[in-house]
């Protein structure tokens, strides 16, 4: 009996320690974000919102934040539109090349981002699309479409086709059936897909670092270049703002379709 109790305490301690390791960087960044010294040191000497104020006064960060929001929003919308079309084709039709198509859609999961990054850089460069909005949107589209297809296909497979058929029998055109019946039924999948696509685009650093430099720089690339030279708490404050945003989006996804299904 005592052995059992000891075992359970040891097990609990182990799990707690592992969680502590997993969450340590985020907790530490949270604490240091209230420091205002110009260098990296722990623990903070004084506590204030000075670093948060500094972030909002930093033109480079605010500019990049705006660009990241815009790029993420465009990527989210485009990835969902393309995702809906592809999902409709793959869930509702049987055609030659369907297997090949579903392989192609899943394939970007299988290639390391850094390899894809070099390839996309080589493709965009002759068209003058490096460091441009169309360039970064295209690059992010390729890595987000697999996710939107997955969430939307899941919602689409769950739609009871008899409902659609009933509408059709009663004289609704295919477009009306899609707009009035199918679209409302798959809305959770659409929103979750858009949220995930936005989040991936917003957080993506690897591919972005290869194809943007100044004009279309995103927030993760700005943070990366800042960290190459400086490590002051401004980055911590900025990180906390980003984390808060991610958490908000994650809550939305979790509510709609469940986080584990979406990833």
């Amino acid at each position, binding site marked *: 009996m005592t052995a059992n109790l000891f075992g359970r305490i040891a*097990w609990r301690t182990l799990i707690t320690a592992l969680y502590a390791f997993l969450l340590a960087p985020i907790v530490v960044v949270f604490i240091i974000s209230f420091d205002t010294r110009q260098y990296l040191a722990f623990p903070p000497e004084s506590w204030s919102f000075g670093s948060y104020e500094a972030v909002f006064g930093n033109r480079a960060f605010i500019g990049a934040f705006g660009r990241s929001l815009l790029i993420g929003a465009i990527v989210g919308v485009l990835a969902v539109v393309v995702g809906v079309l592809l999902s409709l084709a793959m869930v509702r039709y049987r055609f030659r090349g369907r297997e090949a*198509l579903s392989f192609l859609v899943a394939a*970007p999961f299988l290639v390391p981002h850094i390899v894809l990054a*070099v390839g996309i850089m080589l493709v965009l460069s002759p068209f003058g699309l490096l460091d441009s909005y169309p360039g970064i949107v295209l690059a992010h589209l*390729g890595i987000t479409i697999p996710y939107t297809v997955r969430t939307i296909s899941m919602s689409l497979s769950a739609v009871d086709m008899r409902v659609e058929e009933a509408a059709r029998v009663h004289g609704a055109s295919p477009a009306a059936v899609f707009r009035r019946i199918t679209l409302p039924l798959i809305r959770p999948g659409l929103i979750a897909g858009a949220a995930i696509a936005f989040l991936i685009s917003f*957080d993506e650093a690897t591919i972005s670092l290869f194809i943007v430099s100044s004009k279309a720089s995103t927030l993760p690339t700005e*943070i990366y270049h800042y960290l190459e030279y400086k490590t002051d708490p401004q980055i911590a404050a900025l990180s906390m703002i980003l984390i808060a945003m991610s958490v908000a989006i994650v809550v939305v996804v979790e509510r709609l379709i469940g986080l584990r299904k979406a990833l």
Partner: protein
Amino acid sequence: MSATLAKGGTDRSVLLILVLPGLLALGVTFVLPLIWLIRASLAPSAFTAITSPDWTVGSYSAVLFDPFYWRVALNTLTLGLTVSAFAVVLSYPIALFLVRTPSRWRGVLTALAVAPLLTSAVVRTYGWMVILGDRGVINGALTSLHLIERPLPLSNNSFGATVALIEIFMPYAILAMLSGFGRLNSALEEAAAMLGANRLRVFTRIILPLSLPGVLTAALLVFVLAISSFVTPRLLGGGRVFVLGTEVYNEATVTLNWPLAAALSVILLVLFSSVIVLYQRALRSLEG
């Protein structure tokens, strides 16, 4: 009727409209880049020569005959294996706990374990710079306790990069294990315990074999993510950690030797594919 067969003329044109945007997007952002990557890796080594009609294996022979790149490849493999091994060992208890706990906090705890996935790797790398830095959490605590006089070399080396990568990839490992632990069954464990097996025996004979496919998937996932990482090795390595990822980035954006960057990427891809093939063999022998 559950699905429409595309044979009529209108059906086919509808299908074309559905598929075309996706094909175009994936073609431009996935298929074309891979083809150009291979083409560029065979172009002469000069910045502007990407579109030149000449073919050469110069970039590959430059890599193969340079001991530096052999060391880089070895570093990459070592980093990948170390990170993968530790991430799997540290994630295993968490995944097992999340699968078996009757706690009503299970949903929250699961979200907590995988949520770090959704914060940028750059941000979490910064967190580890705070923890491992010369005036960071650990060195600061040890110095103020007068246990050390000079800060321990925890960052700006491969140790720091390895620790950070382990933590950064743990959520992936946990996620892979959670979806691979479907065969775990508490009834089997109870049966074994009732038949007199002790806890160690229940673990080694029942839990471990049933969870092995999930563990293997997690190990593969972390390995491939680790060998293609460069943001964390670069920032926490302080420019002293040389892996394939950092060298690809260096050639592509600093030296601007794109054929060499392309050749290194192709080598990374080959390394990556061979690991996947090995993994599939292992999985098959495990099931067969």
